[in-house]
């Protein structure tokens, strides 16, 4: 048994002297959290930008009342509009333009509907919220002025106001912010795969490539202990990478203005530990799969390309669950990958996990890992693998 730890320690030292595996670990651990931070900031900025809008107005001299009313609203700044508004918007020189035609003054004076145009490009995601703010402002001006006109004629404005609409935040920003949370399970599982990969491939295919497998296997130790030692090193690296990703994610979440976005940020330390426990079973399986696959490769590079393809396995369901979170499906919990995604969704949603879920996931992971390591041991005994270079 001592040999397992000797082998694991050697693989660990060997791997971390290689800059490549260190960078893989760090990039794998930092990519997800930084991405999450970036996306949150984008949404926060967009929301802020929507509240403070600059409105380019073409033909302001036609409607001084409207323009000065707009300018008095909080966060609104009036800019001179471009000569040709449609062209300017199409070429993205302006995000949107409020156009007031010459006939506005006459119609407004006669209390007939006075035309204004809002020129915008619906394909531009970022301007959508600003345009909707402008529309709200125009509607408010319209009903305010209409009310004044009715009062001047001795009619209560209440008669035409069939509805009393209260401003309810549509909260799209909040929804989008909550959706970003759904990326966290995938990033945690991907960190396991990336961090374990260098050791899993170098200690198998790399060992074959260097011709060092033959002298190594001549040491009087049962074959399975070589496999177990190498797996232990890869699994420890995978767990380290995952824990690193989780801590950086938490650090990023604490620094983000989540409350401003209306997202509840109450991930306690207990929940972080629960997250670790929920994802960890995959940290047993992932390196075992990677080792098994790498045994078929003759070189480190060949193994890396196989393992790159293997990464698609957790990625596809990972992206799907961003849109369809796997909550309230406890029967998924013991399954590899999907179970991790489902459990992380539950924990981030503030729910408790039944102990059975964690135990089930661990039991399934342990037996799958054992099976994979047994298969890898068979490969390690194969003459084709030992000598086939």
């Amino acid at each position, binding site marked *: 048994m001592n*040999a397992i730890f*000797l082998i694991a320690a050697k693989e660990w*030292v060997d791997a971390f*002297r290689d800059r490549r595996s260190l960078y893989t670990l760090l990039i794998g651990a930092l990519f997800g959290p930084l991405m999450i931070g970036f996306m949150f900031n984008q949404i926060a900025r967009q929301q802020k930008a929507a509240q403070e809008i600059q409105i380019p107005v073409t033909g302001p001299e036609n409607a001084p009342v409207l323009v000065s009313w707009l300018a008095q609203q909080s966060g609104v700044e009036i800019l001179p509009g471009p000569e040709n508004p449609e062209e300017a918007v199409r070429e993205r020189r302006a995000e949107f333009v409020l156009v007031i035609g010459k006939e506005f003054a006459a119609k407004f004076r006669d209390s007939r509907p006075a035309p204004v145009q809002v020129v915008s490009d619906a394909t531009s995601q970022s301007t959508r919220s600003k345009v909707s703010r402008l529309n709200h402002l125009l509607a408010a001006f319209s009903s305010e002025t209409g009310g004044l006109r009715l009062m001047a004629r001795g009619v209560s404005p209440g008669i035409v106001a069939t509805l009393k609409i209260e401003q309810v935040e549509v909260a799209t920003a909040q929804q989008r912010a909550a959706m970003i949370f759904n990326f966290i399970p995938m990033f945690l599982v991907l960190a396991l795969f990336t961090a374990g990969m260098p050791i899993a491939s170098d200690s198998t295919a790399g060992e074959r490539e*260097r011709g*060092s497998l033959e*002298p190594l296997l*001549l040491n*009087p130790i049962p074959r399975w202990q070589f496999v177990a030692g190498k797996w232990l090193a890869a699994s420890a690296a995978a767990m380290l990478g995952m824990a690193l990703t989780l801590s950086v994610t938490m650090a990023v979440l604490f620094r983000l203005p989540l409350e401003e976005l209306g997202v509840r940020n109450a991930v306690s330390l207990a929940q972080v530990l629960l997250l670790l426990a929920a994802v960890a079973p995959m940290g047993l399986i992932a390196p075992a799969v990677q080792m098994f696959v790498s045994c078929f490769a003759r070189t480190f590079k060949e193994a890396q390309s196989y393992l790159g393809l293997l990464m698609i396995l957790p990625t596809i369901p990972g992206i799907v669950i961003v849109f369809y979170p796997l909550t309230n499906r406890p029967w998924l919990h013991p399954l590899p990958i999907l179970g991790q995604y489902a459990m992380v969704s539950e924990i981030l949603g503030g729910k408790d996990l039944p102990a059975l879920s964690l135990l089930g996931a661990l039991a399934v992971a342990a037996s799958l890992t054992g099976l994979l390591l047994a298969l890898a041991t068979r490969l390690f005994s194969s003459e084709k693998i030992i*000598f086939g270079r």
Partner: protein
Amino acid sequence: MIAAQNLHKQFGSVVAVDNVSFVAPDGAVTGVLGPNGAGKTTSLRMVYGLLKPERGSVLIDGIDMASHTLAAQRRIGVLPDISGLYPRLTPREHIRYFGRLQGVPSAELDHRIDTWVRLLDLGSIIDRRVAGFSHGERTKVALARALVHNPGNILLDEPTNGLDVMSTRAVRELIRHLRAEGRCVVFSSHVMQEVSALCDRIVVMGRGKVVAEGTPEDLLTLTGCASLEDAFVHLVGPHGETA
């Protein structure tokens, strides 16, 4: 002592080793001589137990390799045909790693490493990473690593292949030193001079078979040739074919 009996190995339809038997006694150097492709490496791989012979058996100090693999392997030290080092580890780490896997106590290891540094003149490189070492330096590290557990039986597959003069001398001196300590040394080579300079006994192989076995004098008598080189050519044929 190593005894190989009727070893047979086939890869697909190609018979690589055909009924090979030889005995390598303790305190002697046994050379396995033969042209490239004669089955030397395959035979040695069966002797050290990483290839399973289809027929035949190997006894290491009387222990059967097939049924007591680990016990038999504990009694041998092997330098395979490729040194197979880890580029990011130092020679000291290589020797320590294999020493620990062989069960040499950690405290004893430092002492053994000092001995190998002296024997193979590794002093200047012992704590440098192996990446960038010359072929000679790599072979010396692989030798020290293979022999750190002081095995009684030593198998070297073409140990001097591609080495410069100084490294070849160092390896030859080491082989004589091991013989003087009473160990059983088997090494393979396709170089006549190498074998005649070192060996007490010679096993000549050609086309997967043992063509002749004995002391250098035995081979001369057997073939009626004046020199070992002539005897070798006579035995395996001018194009490496068995006579």
